[in-house]
């Protein structure tokens, strides 16, 4: 194998009197430098006009979509928070109303119970009074019956004592005799 090594630039620069100096040694040629600068700038203009705007527009559109979605999400979050607040408010009101209803129901129930108790009491009193009246009537009737029975018994006993059937005429005679004795 031939491992010949050539460091051309330094050798050429040294040989060529026009290409002396450090820049020439490094291979810097002003014509090539200008050409490459202009070529690169043309490339920048070409790509900057026809290629990059396409991608930048897509990136911007996507960013806008992301921003819009973020805004929508924030808005939804705010709406959800507001709805939650409304729900909490409604629940609070409902609980309040329910408490009021329960309280009213309790009052009404108490009133109904009281009214029922009153009614029952008055009815019981009436029943008691009626019972008292009935008992009184029964007592009177019993007394009347007892009076009549006593009279009958007295009559029967008298009959047995005097040995005669008590008639009206006898009765009157007896009564007259008794009155006479008494006198």
């Amino acid at each position, binding site marked *: 194998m031939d491992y010949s090594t050539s460091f051309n630039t330094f050798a050429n620069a040294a040989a060529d009197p026009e290409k002396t100096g450090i820049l020439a040694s490094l291979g810097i040629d002003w014509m090539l430098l200008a050409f490459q600068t202009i070529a690169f700038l043309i490339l920048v203009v070409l790509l900057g006009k026809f290629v990059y705007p396409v991608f*930048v527009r897509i990136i911007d559109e996507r960013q806008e979509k992301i921003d819009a979605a973020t805004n929508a999400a924030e808005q939804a979050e705010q709406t959800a928070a507001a709805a939650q607040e409304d729900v909490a408010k409604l629940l609070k009101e409902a609980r309040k109303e329910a408490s009021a209803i329960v309280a009213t129901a309790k009052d009404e129930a108490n009133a109904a119970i009281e009214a029922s108790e009153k009614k029952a009491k008055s009815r019981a009193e009436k029943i008691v009074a009626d019972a008292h009246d009935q008992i009184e009537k029964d007592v009177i009737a019993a007394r009347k019956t007892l009076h009549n029975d006593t009279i009958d018994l007295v009559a029967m006993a008298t009959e047995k004592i005097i040995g005669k059937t008590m008639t009206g005429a006898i009765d009157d005679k007896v009564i007259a005799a008794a009155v006479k004795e008494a006198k």
Partner: protein
Amino acid sequence: MMNYFAATELHISLAAETIFHIGSFPVTNSMILGGFGVIVMLALLFYAASKVKKGGYNRFIGLLHWTFEGFLNQAEEIIGDKKIARKIFPLVMTMFFTVIVTYWISVLPGVGAISWNGTPLFRGLPADLNFTFALAIITVVASQVYAIQKHGAFGNVKRYVKNPLKDPIGAFEGILELVGEFSRLVALSFRLFGNAFAGEVLLLVVAVLAGVFSIAGLPLVMAFELFIGFIQAYVFFVLTLIFTSLAIQTHGGHDDHEPSLTSPDHSPVDTTKKPLAAAQLE
């Protein structure tokens, strides 16, 4: 037999070599491969743009979409001003695509091995200092243009030139800024050139030294070079943004040298932050 499989000659040239002339204009081997790379890049990007316009989608479009979105966000974050970031985006994106495509194409087998009259027919465009120097010049000029748009021509000059009697520290800072602009120019161009050139030399050396066994070793080095290509393209992209961002930052007067926690402008905190990021990348 071995000669058919591997490079047998180490042909290393620091400069791109002229293959032929069009009139008096020299066409170099880096321009041939670079031109091919740019054509491939344009074809892919125009295909993607037309596909996106029609509402089409595939994995390649998805990858490009993802790349554009990530890089655009990054540009807006680094620059801070969305309007300027959108303006400079085509430039930095073209830099990224051009560097990555031409760098990756230079890793293809055959680059450096196929010769024309003893000169390699192909050479990676980033391994040509004319190209990297052109990119660096464009970066520095662009940052100056945006700085002038932001501060005005006089305001921009004031970034570098200050009255040493009124503001000696500021005047010294101005000189440092001026030196910094030139150092950026050199650093940007030589970093990319050095990496690309070293990559090509490494591939060549591995091919020559490993001989037929380079079939096993070269793919690993090529994969590494692809990674380096991506890193270099990304670094160029980010540094261009950082330099522009530094150039358009609002500078205050002499009071800026005092620590200020209330000023949103270019406070000492800011001045250390971004150059630090740039220094880390460099």
